[in-house]
Structure formats: structure tokens, C-alpha cells
């Protein structure tokens, strides 16, 4: 099969979008917005040096949001036969007649929509990622896992190593006159070694660790053996992990878990959570919500970054939003609907799901790096927990109460000492952010929500 050119793909997706929008308008919709997605992926998994799984497929689906007056409905299907498309449009119309008028519903003003020539090239697609075949993916996973198994005799087992690639294209066509197509690729490699914990008192426990690399461009991935060895090192570091006494202490968050704290903030500054009064940050714009060291930016315009996009889910031109500046909350992230509910303007933060629904989202949501190296953060901590993993869902967005399982290393006099597991860390998120007293220099944009290392001066640790 010859591969279709990108120009031809764009024309085909836009044409399908236009056909769906026309069909919906003819069936009685006042507003119709179609989203077309297609993609292909391949993932290969190797375990104990043998191939375990090779999965390869392409997929397509269409989503539609319609409005009749101010009655809204969405519909989605992967049945792209003539009959399937017709039914999917009819379903949307039928459901719009069932729903009730919502005074805030409606598309963005047409004058705000971006034009295709304004869309910046963000370099999110790499042909090399697309061309990786099963054998090559298996090769990457094998090399990475072997590096882990050969690193140390105590690595006796493995949950496997996986190499995946994905590539996708999406088009958005609206009756308000917007046309946009975007595409992107993503490749990742992860390794999960396992060691038997023969330390005194561990009763047959096993310890599993992992490490991974991910990028939109093939050339940006870490070498296979580097990923494997780092995964092994992290696994061995967990041998002999134990509980510590219940106490108040400083907590240092490794970038991998710091990210998930950022994710909680992201959930609390979305316009939907705000107008629904489901966030502890309601009415806090213009007030201090974190320490002076905290600046968080949502930036969709970073070249090659995982969360980048030239326009938002409603067709507004993407822009950089400073969410928290030196501890002060500057703005929520809003789509057209939540902006109307709050009497504000959209921040071009709309996401449109594959099923046609729209809600505010983050793009590249990043805690800006500070001035202290991660090593110095540990060195300046007298006693505390260095957290590498968190478990569970203990967060109440309405109140900000936070309580999660944690594992990592005990810090004593500026040194990481023994590994710790089976403890929880708890505090209200509002206080956590106010108590951030060090922010690291080590930012890596592997993920769309990203953070350097940071330290919270005191939290409650529950253990023995």
C-alpha cells in the first residue's frame, strides 16, 4: 500500500467533516461541529528476552456536537459506512430534541475563530516514528530489557519491556466556518524489572521498578540500554523498603510524582470545576495560592512537546496562559461555555473529545524550574521523605484535602538512606502549595503535565 500524502489526508478528513456538518444542518441542527480522528499504533512487548505481544492496528472514528436552538447533544461512531454515518447524525438530532435549553450553550463567536493560515507549525509529527515495524519495536524492547537483566544478578525477573508508537490525525469542521487539521506522533519505551527481596523480614516480597522514555520524535528517545539500566537501578534501590514512624516531616517530590501534584492543580483550575463550585480554588483569582517560588504556565506552543496544539477544540488560536505567577492565581483555564458561565473570556483552553463533547483542558502544564539543583534540595533536607511513587486517589477537589500512599527514600542529614514503603502523606493541597520552599532545575517535557523536583517543608507522614 502506498502511503497517502499529508495534503491528501487533510483534504479527505475535511471533506468528511463537511459532509457530516451538512447532513446535520439538513436534519435540523442550527449548529454542527464534527471531529474526525484516525490513527495507527503498534506496540511490542518482550518478557524475559522473548516476544510476548505484538499489536498493530489502525482506527477511525467521528464525533459530532449539534445544537438545536440551545439544546445540545453529542454522538460518536466508528461505523463509517453510509448507513452508520446517517444513523450517527440522526442520533445526535434525536438527543438534542430531548435535552433542554441551556442559556449558556452556543459556539464561540465566529469572529474569534482562527484561520488555517494562522496555525503555527509545531513539529509534532515524525515520519520515522510511523515507519517503525514490529521487528524493530521488538528489537528496542529486547535491548532495553536485556540491559536491565544484565545489570545485576539480583534482577531475577521482569514484567517486561514495551516499545510503542502511535500516530494520529484529527480534523475539526464547524458550521461556524472553522476548518483545521492536525497530526502528531508519539513513541515510548518502558522497562519493568523485578527483584526478589531477600532482606530480613520481607517474607517473599518482590520489588518492581520501572523507567521509561517518550518523545514525539524518534531521535529524542533515550538509548535502549540507558533506559534498561536505569530501570534496574531503581528496582534494586527498593530492596528492603520499610515503614517509618508516624510524624511531621519535609517531603521532596521526584519529577515523576511532582507531576501528579500538578495534575491535581490542573483539575482544580479548569472552568468546569469552577462554575460547578467543585474546586477549592473557587473565588481565588488574584489571591495567593502558593509560595513565591511557584509559577505555573500552560503553554500549547512549545515545538515538539506532547501537549502542544496550534488551535483549541473550538477553533480558537492557541496561546500561552500564565496560570500562577510567583504564587498568585492569575486565571482559570476556560472554554467558551465555562467562560460564559463565569462572565469571562475563553482562554482558548477547549478540548474536544473524540465523542464531540467540549470541556476545558490543559496543554503543556508546567511548573517553571527554580534555581536549586535536585541534589542540593536533598542535601539541604535534615530529615524527610524523598517520594518516588504515589498510590491511590485520595484527593477531594472540593476541599483540597489530600492523602495518598507513598514510597521512596528516607532522607537523614541531607543523604538518601534506606527505602521506604507502605506509608501515606497527607495535607490540604492549599497548604502544600504554600509550603513549597524549594523548586529544582530539572524539568523534562516527557509528558504534557510536567514538573521539576520540589520540596514541601512539612506534611503528615502516617506509618507505624
Amino acid at each position, binding site marked *: 500500500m502506498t502511503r497517502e500524502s499529508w495534503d491528501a489526508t487533510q483534504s479527505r478528513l475535511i471533506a468528511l467533516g463537511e459532509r457530516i456538518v451538512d447532513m446535520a444542518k439538513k436534519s435540523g441542527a442550527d449548529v454542527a461541529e464534527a471531529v474526525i480522528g484516525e490513527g495507527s499504533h503498534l506496540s511490542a512487548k518482550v518478557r524475559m528476552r522473548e*516476544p510476548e505481544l505484538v499489536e498493530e492496528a489502525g482506527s477511525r472514528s467521528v464525533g459530532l456536537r449539534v445544537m438545536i436552538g440551545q439544546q445540545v447533544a453529542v454522538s460518536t461512531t466508528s461505523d463509517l459506512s453510509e448507513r452508520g454515518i446517517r444513523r450517527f447524525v440522526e*442520533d445526535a438530532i434525536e438527543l438534542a430534541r430531548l435535552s433542554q435549553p441551556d442559556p449558556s450553550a452556543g459556539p464561540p463567536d465566529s469572529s474569534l475563530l482562527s484561520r488555517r493560515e494562522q496555525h503555527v507549525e509545531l513539529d509534532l509529527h515524525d515520519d520515522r516514528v510511523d515507519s517503525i515495524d514490529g521487528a524493530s519495536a521488538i528489537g528496542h524492547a529486547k535491548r532495553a530489557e536485556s540491559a536491565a537483566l544484565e545489570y545485576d544478578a539480583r534482577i531475577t525477573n521482569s514484567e517486561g519491556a514495551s516499545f510503542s508508537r502511535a500516530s494520529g490525525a484529527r480534523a475539526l469542521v464547524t458550521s461556524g466556518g472553522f476548518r483545521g487539521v492536525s497530526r502528531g506522533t508519539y513513541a515510548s519505551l518502558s522497562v519493568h524489572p523485578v527483584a526478589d527481596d531477600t532482606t530480613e523480614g520481607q517474607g517473599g516480597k518482590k520489588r518492581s521498578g520501572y523507567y521509561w522514555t517518550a518523545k514525539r520524535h524518534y531521535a529524542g528517545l533515550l538509548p535502549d540500554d540507558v533506559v534498561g539500566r536505569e530501570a534496574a537501578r531503581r528496582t534494586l534501590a527498593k530492596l528492603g523498603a520499610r515503614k517509618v514512624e508516624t510524624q511531621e516531616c519535609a517531603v521532596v517530590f521526584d519529577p515523576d510524582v511532582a507531576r501528579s501534584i500538578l495534575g491535581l492543580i490542573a483539575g482544580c483550575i479548569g472552568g468546569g470545576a469552577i462554575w460547578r463550585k467543585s474546586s477549592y480554588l473557587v473565588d481565588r483569582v488574584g489571591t495567593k495560592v502558593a509560595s513565591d517560588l511557584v509559577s505555573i504556565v500552560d503553554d500549547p506552543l512549545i515545538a515538539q512537546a506532547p501537549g502542544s496544539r496550534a488551535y483549541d477544540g473550538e477553533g480558537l488560536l492557541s496561546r500561552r496562559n500564565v496560570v500562577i505567577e510567583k504564587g498568585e492565581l492569575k486565571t482559570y483555564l476556560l472554554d467558551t461555555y465555562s467562560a460564559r458561565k463565569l462572565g469571562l473570556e475563553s482562554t482558548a483552553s477547549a478540548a474536544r473529545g473524540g465523542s464531540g463533547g467540549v470541556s476545558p483542558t490543559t496543554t503543556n502544564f508546567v511548573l517553571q524550574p527554580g534555581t536549586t539543583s535536585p541534589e542540593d534540595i536533598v542535601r539541604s533536607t535534615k530529615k524527610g521523605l524523598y517520594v518516588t511513587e504515589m498510590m491511590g486517589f485520595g484527593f477531594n477537589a472540593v476541599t483540597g484535602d489530600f492523602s495518598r500512599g507513598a514510597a521512596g527514600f528516607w532522607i537523614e542529614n541531607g543523604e538518601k538512606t534506606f527505602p521506604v514503603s507502605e506509608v501515606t502523606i497527607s495535607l490540604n493541597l492549599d497548604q502544600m502549595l504554600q509550603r513549597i520552599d524549594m523548586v529544582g532545575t530539572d524539568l523534562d517535557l516527557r509528558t504534557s503535565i510536567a514538573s521539576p523536583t520540589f520540596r514541601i517543608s512539612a506534611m503528615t507522614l502516617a506509618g507505624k
Partner: protein
Amino acid sequence: MSQRYQAPFGPQGTSPIDPRLAEKLLGVALSKGGDYADLFFEYEVSGSYGYEEGILKSAGRGVSMGLGVRVRKGDATGYAYCEDFEVDAMERAARTAAQIADAGGKEPVGLAPLDTPKRYHVELYSLDVAGELKRDLLRRADEAARAADPRVSRVEASISESLREILVATSDGTMVHDIQPLIRFGIRVIAEQNGKRQAGSSGGGGRMGLEYFDQRSPEWHAKEAVRQALTMLDAREAPAGEMEVVLAPGDSGILLHEAVGHGLEADFNRKKTSNYTDQIGQRVASDLCTVVDDATLASSRGSVNVDDEGNVPQSTMLIEKGILRGYMQDRQSTEFFGGRPTGNGRRESFKSHPMPRMTNTMLLAGQDDPEEIVKSVKKGVFARKFGGGQVDISNGDFVFSLTEGYLIEDGKITAPLKGVNLIGNGPDVMRKVVMLGSDMELSDGIWTCGKEGQSVPVGVACPTVKISGMTVGGTQVG
């Protein structure tokens, strides 16, 4: 039963898959020398209705369909899928999956249709009922919540419904068809008082139609959500550290699901990555504990007539009076361990390969009076409602988060506590089960289990349970 949405490949569909075509596709899948192949045809329709600010604000419907082809050669699996049922596309998927093998070739066995039990009691599929009826149920929930208390400031209620039609054909001769209905209702309210806000929620459902609401009315759920939000307005900081914990019956089964369920999925034990590896016949819990995974419970969210590999699951004994008896198996693990398949091979959709998964995981009732259990605790925590849990199967550490819990002081349930996480180690906590109530309850269908990126609906069940020591993740030291 009339069905508005029907799979094209089903017996009443526009292009039913006949055994000859399935055999031909299986032949293509095995043409490179695979040992085993299966076809998983799926057609799923889902609907959602969201009621907010006193109106039906959003309604949606989705159709997802396709064929997943799996080929196994030894321990290696090739997987591919396509999203239309044209013969060419299906053959292409079969050829792609076949690539995992590279020598020889095998013939599939002739297909024989298999009958399944009837575990879903449905009067009428929810998707075949007029939308106005669902809108009305949501309106009733909304009105009941607002009327319940002036402190209620926001109400959101939703219904999601789905109908999943599957057809499984295997190279060892099974062909089986099933239609799996699922409905889920949920309500969330926010109550405000003196500048404080708290949320409360309630929900339920199962493999049934709108008759669900005959057992549990929208008003019942509304009052329950309001009760929880008002209770939590008075919640205080929870204690931190190790203490006695009493679990309320029903949703507390989350603890089991995390503490032993995942660790007893056979793939982890086949690969020796679970901390329960090689412990069949050994003590893994106190002798009060008998744990089963039961897929037969009528209309429960976790029940299925047939798993996604064409095996009919029953009730599987996992732990008998504290002794480990067995694992939850899929086809691949059954070949490895021997014995009969338990029918736990499930997948999220045709886009995913099957794995051993739970259905309804249950800790069976004991002999103790639930009231006596609470009375026996000097200082501890009573756990009533949960947000979810997670486990690390390698070392057995697991957590679950409380959305409603109370302090127990001198044998009495006293102050409500702010949400906290509890953390423990599976084998350790199961050995610390020191009292077990006679009041076993099954969760009302709300739980979804995630594993390796795949979500499947499950149920959990347990009686009142006393654990002699667990770490409570509060903020109050000492």
C-alpha cells in the same frame, strides 16, 4: 425482545457471521504457524444523559464496533483489529496477527455453537426505552436532592447505559454469542454552610434495564448523596498512624479487590511477579476469610454469561478459610497451570487482548454480630464509603481512599472524618482480619477496574470486617 441497535454480525443482524466465514478467517490467522487463534467481534452502543442546574443539559450516544484477531504461538501473542466487517478488512487483520508465528501452519477445528447461561434479567433494554423516561428519572433525583435540605447548592445526576454484543470464535471449535446490557446511575451534590463546601454522591446499577429503579429509586440515591454531603460538612481532621479499622459491608470489598484480587490473577503468578506466587495450599489470610470470584450473580455489574474468550465462568474459590486454593485464569494461564478454565479472560473491547480479570470478588460472611464488632474497638476508624483503590502486586502494598469515615471511640461511632487514604500490605492485612460480620452485602453496581490500561466493570462484596491494624493516612499525629 425488540432491539433498536443490533450488531450486523449477530444472529438477527444484517450480515450474520456464519461459521464457514469464521473458520476461513481463523485459517488465515493460523496460516503462519500459530498454535491458537480467536476472533472477537464486538458491537457496543452506549448512551449518556447528564442532568444539571435543573435541566437535561447533555445527552450523547456512541457506537463502537470491530473485530479483534488474536494469534498465539507459545507464549507470544499477535493482535490486530479492524473496524469494519468487510471480508477484505477482516482478512487483513487476521494476516497481521498471524505474523507473530513464522513457520508451518495449522487447521482450525470446525465450529460448534455454544449455549450460555442467562444471568442478566432484563425486561427491556434501556437503550430501547424512550429518552423522556430517563430524563424523568433524573428530574426526580434532582428535585429530591434540592428538596432534601436548604444547604444543597448544586446537584448533578447522570445515567449511562450500554449494550455490548459479542461473538467469539476460537480455533479449538467454540463459537458463542452474548448480549451484555449495563446501566449505571449516579448523583453528586454539593452542600454549603458557613463558607464550607462538601460533596456527597451515590450511585448504582447493573446488567439490567430501568427496572433497576424499582429496587433503588432516584429519590433514595438523592437522599443518600445529601446525607453524605451534610455529614462531611462537620468532618474533622483524621488521625494518622496504625490503628484498628472496621469496614462497613458492601463497597468495602474494594479492600479485597486490591489486597488479594489482583495478586491472584493468574498471569502475574504464571510470570512469578505476584507476591502470591507459588503459595497454593498455603495460608495467606486469617481462617475467617473465604474469598470467591463469582460471575453468576443475577444481573450484577461484574457478572457475565460468557467471558471474552468463549468460556463460561462460574464461582471460583480463591481462598478457603485462609488457605490459598486457586487463581483467576484466562486461556493462556490455564494451559500453563492445567485444570479447568475459570472463565476470567476479559477485555475492554475488540481493541484489546484478553487478560485474567475479576468479575464479582466476594469475602463471604462470618459469624459476628456487626454491632459487636464496632463495640469491640477502643480507638479506630469506621470506613463507610470509598473513592477507589490501587495495588502494587509485586510487594502487595495497596491503598484505598475513604470518602466517608468515622472515628470509633470506646466502641461507639462518633465524629465524621475528612477523606483519608488507608494503606496496608495484602497478606499482612488479610491475616489481621480478626472479626467478620454475618451481614454480607454486594456493592450496588458502580465499580470499574483498571489493569494495564484496560477498564472492565466489576462487583465487590463483603460483610462488616474488623482489621486489627492498618495505617490510616490522616493529618493528626499522636
